[in-house]
């Protein structure tokens, strides 16, 4: 399930760029950076669980998700799979061989970046509304939601130039995740040494 979300995000993040227009398509060499705030609303819990941090998305290499508060956890997703580290020490490694879904969608990512919507459409029904400056997209899974294979009932994405917010409604009714992306920027600066090292470690 976690993998599924990761993949969805990876697809959605660059979507914004695409939605905004061809001029904003992510090209090779460009890096998307930003901050995120994740709020997890769970039924019966008194308050949402809030995580803040920042991320780096590099097309062709993967995504670095650095959660900073309340726990510093680094998650790196590449074509090879998912790696998590706490304080420099690796805590989890899931190879993509075990995540066929992940690798499948990772391939589709390339297609989507190039403007091919059909890939997403096999698993989700997408409805778009709004315009380039202010758009909203609703994804409904074609599969019946259940805990393991498709844990979402719906995914709502909002954005302007970039993807600003994603709301994931869990299959389990009542639980949802809210992800907000702030201070995003596209730059052609190459990766810092740390970031490159992180990707290397994940291989």
């Amino acid at each position, binding site marked *: 399930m976690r993998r599924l979300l990761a993949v969805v995000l990876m697809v959605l993040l660059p979507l914004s760029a695409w939605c905004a227009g061809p001029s904003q398509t992510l090209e090779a060499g460009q890096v998307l950076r930003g901050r995120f705030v994740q709020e997890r609303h769970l039924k*019966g819990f008194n308050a949402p669980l809030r995580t803040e941090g920042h991320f780096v998305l590099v097309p062709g290499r993967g995504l670095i998700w650095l959660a900073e508060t309340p726990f510093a956890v680094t998650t790196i997703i590449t074509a090879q799979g998912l790696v998590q580290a706490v304080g420099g020490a690796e805590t989890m490694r899931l190879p993509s061989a075990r995540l*066929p879904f992940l690798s499948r969608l990772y391939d589709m990512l390339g297609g989507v970046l190039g403007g091919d919507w059909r890939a997403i459409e096999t698993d989700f029904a997408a409805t778009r509304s709004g315009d380039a400056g202010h758009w909203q997209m609703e994804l409904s899974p074609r599969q019946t939601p259940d805990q393991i294979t498709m844990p979402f009932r719906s995914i709502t994405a909002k954005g302007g130039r970039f993807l600003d917010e994603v709301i994931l409604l869990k299959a389990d009714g009542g*639980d949802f995740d809210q992800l907000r992306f702030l201070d995003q920027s596209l730059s052609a600066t190459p990766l810092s040494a740390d970031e490159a090292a992180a990707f290397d470690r994940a291989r």
Partner: protein
Amino acid sequence: MTGYSAFAALPSRSQFLALLWLVAVAVAGGYLAWRAVEGIHFRTDLTALLPREDQDPALQRANDTVTRALSQHVVLLFGAADRAQARAAAADLSRRLDGEALLSASTSGLDKDRLQQLGRLYFPYRRGLLAEGDRQRLLEGKAQEIADRALSQVYGFIGMADARLLRQDPFLLMTSFFTGLPLPMSRLSLDDGMMSLKQDGMTWVLVAGRLNGEPFALDVQRRMAAILDPVALQAAHPGVTLLRLGAVFYAKAGADQAMSETSLIGMLSTLGTIVLVALAFRALSPLWLSLLVIGVGVMTALSASLWLFGDLHVGALLFGVSLIGVAVDYSLQYCTEIFAPAAPPRMRLRRVAMGVTLGTATTVIGYLTLFLAPFPGLHQIAVFSAVGLVAAWMTVVLWLPLLDRSVPPRHGRRLLAIGAGVLAVWETPGYRRPRRLAFALLTLAALAGLFRLHADDDVRHMQALSGDLLAQQERILRLIGDAAGGQFFLIQAADEEAALRDEEALIDALRPLVAEGALRNFQALARYVPSAARQRENRQLVRHVLETPLLERQLAQLHLDPTPGAADQADDDQQVLTPGQALSPGGPLGVLSSLDLGRPDGTTTHVVTLEGVTQLERVAQAGAGMRDVRFVDPTASFTTLLGKYRNRAILLIVLSAVLMAPLLIWRHGLIRGLRLLAPPLLAVALTPALRALGGGAFTFFDAMALVLVLSVGVDYAVFCAETSGERRPVTMVAIAMAACTALMSFGLLALSHVAAVHAFGSTMSIGILLAFLLAPMARTIDAGADEDGHWARLAERGTLFGLRLIRGLYGVAGRRGCLVLLWLIVPYFYLSDKARRRHCLAFLGEVHVRQGLPPPGWQEGLAHFMSFAEKALDTFIAWVCPERTGAIRVVGDETMRRLATEGRGGLLIVSHLGNAELCRAHLAKLFGRRVNVLLHSHHAVQYNRILNAVCPEVGAETIQVTDIGPATAIDLKERVERGEWIAIAGDRTPVLNKSRVSRVPFLGRLAPFSQGPYILASLMGCPIQVMFCLREGDGYTVYFETFSEDAIPLPRRGRDLYLEDLCARYAAILETYCLMAPRQWYNFFDFWA
């Protein structure tokens, strides 16, 4: 004429037996046909041939269960570049396999239902279940790490928090336990309902499960092969590769190979036999007789084995087919008799009957010793072969004489020349040097081979696994990471709890080894269901080390209120998850049920299977010191067992020889019987050495082959020993053909790809060749000593030596002294010469019947022998010092005197009743005429030698009977006209020309009498007198009877009847005198034969 009714009775007895045998064969054939209609099942698993571990039934059972579980495990991987194609192919074939109920699909991975079931199973006991890493952390007091990890997961990137789960398990211990479970086939994961894997651009979809049925049953293999046919697959789903793993595929490949080899070998062997027989005999009759024998043998063997065992192993069939080479020996022995001097079929059979029977008996003994090895497969081979051989023997003995219509061939000369040539190599002094050279070379080669001799018992070398399947297996294992090896730990404890605790101790020992790479993974029940003690301990740990300090803070961080879920804690302190609950079949952990072997012998038995073992010794040591834990390596233990039985097999050979020896000693006497065993034993000893020279290893199967080499070798030696005289080249030809056919069948086995069969075939080939080459060593060296043969080859035992001895003694001690010596020697001869004793007693029996006396006992027999010894002594005295002979009376000599005065000679028919030798010198003196004695060649040579050594002046010439040609006949006639007498024995039948024999009554039974004397007399146109010289009191009385005063004219018509009449007259005279002095009868053979 008299006696014809007796004639008619004899054939009908053998016909009756033949009919009985026909009925038996028909029954066997019927049974076989019935089974064939129902379908005959052949087993193909090599394990059925391998030995049972008899010391430890629990171990054997564990072995069996693990092996069976492993062997029923089937893995199919469908790979394609296009995911949809792979999935489609997998779904299609999976459905078809399901439809045929061949496979119980059990993807032992994580599918949605299974996960949910697992969750439901574990949930009530979650507080007792801790992942191994978590337990370590708690024991080391690092509870905070667990708390942090849980929080980071909940807060983390796309946290997997399920609200309800978190409330019950705020530290995510269950999740951790779940992910820590070493579920098999971990490299795969669930992709939309199918376990699959993506690698190198290919998508692989898995269909796995348990085979419904025996992987070694041919019909299961066939059905699987039909569904998984690669050609059909390509047609239906192009671009999809299928990799397969499972014992059923190996078994099919092995079975296919074995079946094709069987049919090939069987066909080639039969073909070769046909060609050989056709070439040798150039007639159809021996050919179809041999085929009949082989056919009946194989058919009855198959029928009997199926009846006894239910189903037959393919290996037994394979070896049984090579039986063809051995069974044909017996029919060949019979058929080659056609090259010997002509005789009716029953006579020909009689000549070889003893040899064939002895050969069959020894070979059957050899095969039956295979029963002593506890190999079920060898039992089948033993029964199959023994029944087949006995059936072949019965066919030869009962049917062949009745069915034989062969005519004596004209081309036999060349063939016999070959046989004689082989014999010449052994007998001619000229060949002595090459013989010695050959022996030296053989010894050298054997010594060289001994250096290279090494044993190899590795059972993996025994069965050649299909290379293609092995490659597929490698690929599958690399892809899915499931490498169940053969090794495992066996745990036998008093109850479940103790077993689980033992497992936990073992797991602690194995985990560091996994980290070091000594093995990749292991499956143990305790990893899925901890022991009760541990579950309680875990609960304590969780309560005291984790929750008490950290729970509040954790809940606060999760923004949760402390729930009244704490109320559960009190309850589940009592509840513990047991294996019985976890392993319910159909439940989520049903696949692990093979790890629990139940309670055989009252102890709970668990298995811990190991995967990917690289350092065997270290892993084996992990269980050291634990009383209930045992490391089992089936392959290694098979190997050790094979080694053990290889050594035992050598003992079996010795035992086999020991079992055969009494039979041979009974037949041939002690020394000759043991000498018979020398060539086969030599062959057995030299064969491994020679094979090692060629690089072969000495394995158990080589040892078993040597057992058979011994029995077949004994056959050849027996045939050599049972033959004599002119029949020897014939026998050599028969043995050569037998060796050829045997080499063809076993030599073909050497071409097999199955290592065990190849070893067996090579050893057999070398062994049989050696046995054949060495067999003539057992031949009869002295010039004929088989008592059932012709009288002419009866050598006076020890005559020359005895005579020298007696001469010396006589000079010293006189007649009395010699008699004493004879009293010492004769009993030995009486006891050891069984055949002559038998005949002597038989003869005396007939006489006693006529005289109304009770049957003779050993005293009468001994007295008879003594009488013979006295006769020899008297003869000797007569030659050496004729004046010392006692008084000689003459009775009925009027006609003789008259003929002598007329200057006419004649034919004197003497016999071996009484001492005819004695009178030679005296007769000459009596009538002033020369007496010529007609004797057989061998006897004559020796006789003349003795005479010349003892008293050269006894001028009576000894003329050889076999040499009577026209020249001799004329010479004889001239002598008779000169007045000389020709003495000829009337109670001995001629050597070769057995047709000039009439069977006439003698002492109440029909006995053969030679027509020769009367024909000779008719040719020479001279009178016939009959003479007996019987010892009476201290002296001798010579009786003359006039048989015919003038020449006998032989009529043209009714000549045979006339001659028969003459023989009958002589027989009557002989009988009269015989009854006068039965103990002076010196024909120690079966006179009525």
